């Protein structure tokens, strides 16, 4: 029967794959079945739970550690002596931002046009009001790839599906020929191909509403990128993305970083269902009775003033 022979062929192929994996890897979790380094048809096996382990989600560019996610002038007038500002003051030393050598290749700077650079700086100064992450909006690509949440790759026959912990977001990389989305998207339209051992993905059809990090680096509707996923080992992928957006950048630029396999035997992606996590932040001011009050007694009284710049109130910014 046709079916039986197909299964036997597949099993034989899987066995070959398994033999290769023993030669290449050796890193299997306790009690887990062996994970072949390659698919039966000889492609890298990217199945599993992955996560970046760096500071790119804070700022793609090289930066030194900062005392607070939101800062204000302290006692001194110097830039390096700024202190945490009200929105994060209650968090103490947990409110800071770790330093990083950055992931932007070349001189480490994003080649903004002069006008776009001004907007990026303004974005950074208005981070709380403008960053879509704080509202639990879909993170977009490439940002989803290096947010501090795991994601799972399910590598299918003609599709590679990535499911992200943050906001239950997902992307499908089409290895076959498909029609694009009927409208621009947050997560883009991903079309992939294999170049040897490297998965190359062109991502287009963006709506220009996504950001790249928490530092105000942003995109426009002409944003597009080409990603390259290359196996470093069975448990690490070298990830590169070359970004093009003539409306914002003077030339294409590239980010690069490793993505690591989560090797815990029970590694899984737990959903971070943040829509209602962000409700108080987004809609709290519309309550009949506010939840945030001045605290009393020994409890810290923090008066948080969020100045929303003109034109930046809820939805106005995204409606631009």
């Amino acid at each position, binding site marked *: 029967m*046709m079916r039986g022979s197909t299964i036997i062929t597949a099993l034989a192929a899987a066995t070959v794959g398994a033999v290769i994996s023993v030669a290449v890897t050796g890193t299997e979790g306790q009690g887990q079945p062996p994970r072949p380094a390659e698919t039966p048809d000889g492609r890298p096996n990217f*199945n599993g739970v992955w996560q970046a382990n760096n500071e790119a989600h804070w700022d793609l560019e090289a930066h030194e550690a900062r005392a607070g996610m939101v800062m204000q002038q302290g006692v001194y007038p110097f830039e390096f002596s700024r202190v945490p500002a009200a929105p994060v003051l209650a968090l103490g030393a947990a409110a800071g931002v770790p330093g990083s050598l950055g992931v932007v290749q070349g001189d480490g700077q994003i080649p903004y046009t002069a006008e776009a650079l001004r907007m990026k700086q303004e974005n950074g100064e208005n981070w709380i009001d403008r960053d879509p992450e704080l509202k639990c909006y879909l993170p977009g690509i490439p940002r989803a790839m290096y947010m501090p949440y795991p994601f799972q790759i399910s590598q299918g*026959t003609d599709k590679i599906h990535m499911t992200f912990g943050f906001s239950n977001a*997902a992307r499908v990389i089409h290895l*076959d*020929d498909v029609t694009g989305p009927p409208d621009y998207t947050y997560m883009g339209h991903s079309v992939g191909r294999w170049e040897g051992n490297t998965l190359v993905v062109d991502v287009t059809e963006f709506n220009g509403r996504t950001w790249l990090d928490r530092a105000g680096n942003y995109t426009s509707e002409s944003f597009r990128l080409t990603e390259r996923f290359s196996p470093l080992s069975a448990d690490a992928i070298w990830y590169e993305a070359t970004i093009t957006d003539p409306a914002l950048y003077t030339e294409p630029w590239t980010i690069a970083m490793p993505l690591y396999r989560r090797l815990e035997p029970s590694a899984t992606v737990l959903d971070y269902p943040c829509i209602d996590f962000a409700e108080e932040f987004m809609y709290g001011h519309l*309550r*009949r009775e506010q939840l945030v009050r001045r605290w009393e007694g020994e409890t810290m009284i923090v008066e948080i003033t969020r100045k929303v710049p003109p034109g930046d109130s809820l939805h106005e910014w995204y409606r631009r």
Partner: protein
Amino acid sequence: MKRRLLESFSVATVLACVMVLMQLTAVPVEGQAGSTTAWGHPNLEGIWLDVYATPFERPERFGDRELATEEERAAQDMARMGNEGRNERGGDGRVDVAGAYNAVYTSAKPAGPRTSLVVDPPNGRVPALTAEAVQMNEVQREWRLMLLRSTETCKVGGTGCRGGEFGEASPRRFDVTPFYNTSRMNRHDGPEDQSSGDRCMSGRTPDFNGFRRIVQGADSIAMGYDTGQGQGFQRIINLTGDHPPRQIRLRHGDSRGRWEGETLVIETTNFSPKFPFRGSGENRKLVERYTRVDADTLSYEMTIEDPTVWTAPWTIRQELKRQSDQENRIYYEPRCHEGNYGLPALLIGRRLDEQKYEEGTGPEPFSLDTATCVNGLEGLDD
């Protein structure tokens, strides 16, 4: 926007034209599914949809009969084409607005071979609720009717107020809701008073109506659901490992799959109480079975149990039809939340109503029915 709308129309047209008769087979046809994945598993990949409109529970006239006759299906299609109430207008603008999603915006599927999705119990109806669940429903119903007391809906005895009475606004109207609310109520103190749908969180597991995209990896299967006006969601079915500890509670539960011959069997537990399905929260347990019947058909069966809600487990069955991969008509990015102008608008509207009332230029806010669309309270937790 125009581009998207045009696409929607063409989808509707395609659906309307898919009046093909499905050949039901009781037993999976061996050898016709034709393929395995690269990983040697039976191939379930693709975009799948229940292309028929099938009642969830079986109308009593069908008794224990699972399948409808050709004549019964044709009669149902005729009745639907007549589309009773399609252009009903109310004298009050509010009623018109409530009917914003009229027949033009809701696609109609043809009647299918099944008389109901529920196939077990054999009468095709969800088993009786437990006393505990009946009491919880009564608490919810009483609460929602209490908030409607002083509305026109109750004054005129509208269906939305059925079981309630007209009177002065209740002194309990500002109390904390005595249950975790997920449905519309006639109060808008904050986001918690709105329905899950208003808050872009209506997607639930299980889901029977939407598109499903299945991508099969070596040790996981991804299922993307496109359902409920941009309120779809992603599920990961892990083929290895065990359910996480009890204290981990997830919106769509934790799904572990295994192969029993040609059938994918998925067990899902660890559900969160925040996202109930028909009143069932954290005690829900699902067993789903997917079997490829032929090139274009996937048989789906789901058994749900929650001894705190139903007196017995129950089962639904569907035949899902493969959709064109090339046309790729599925939204894997549910973006209701990103464009949710409705939720803040509801809250702003209520604050303005309160302000007008205080200034003496508007009615007492609780005398306005902003919950039932006059016609009836929306279903509880569905």
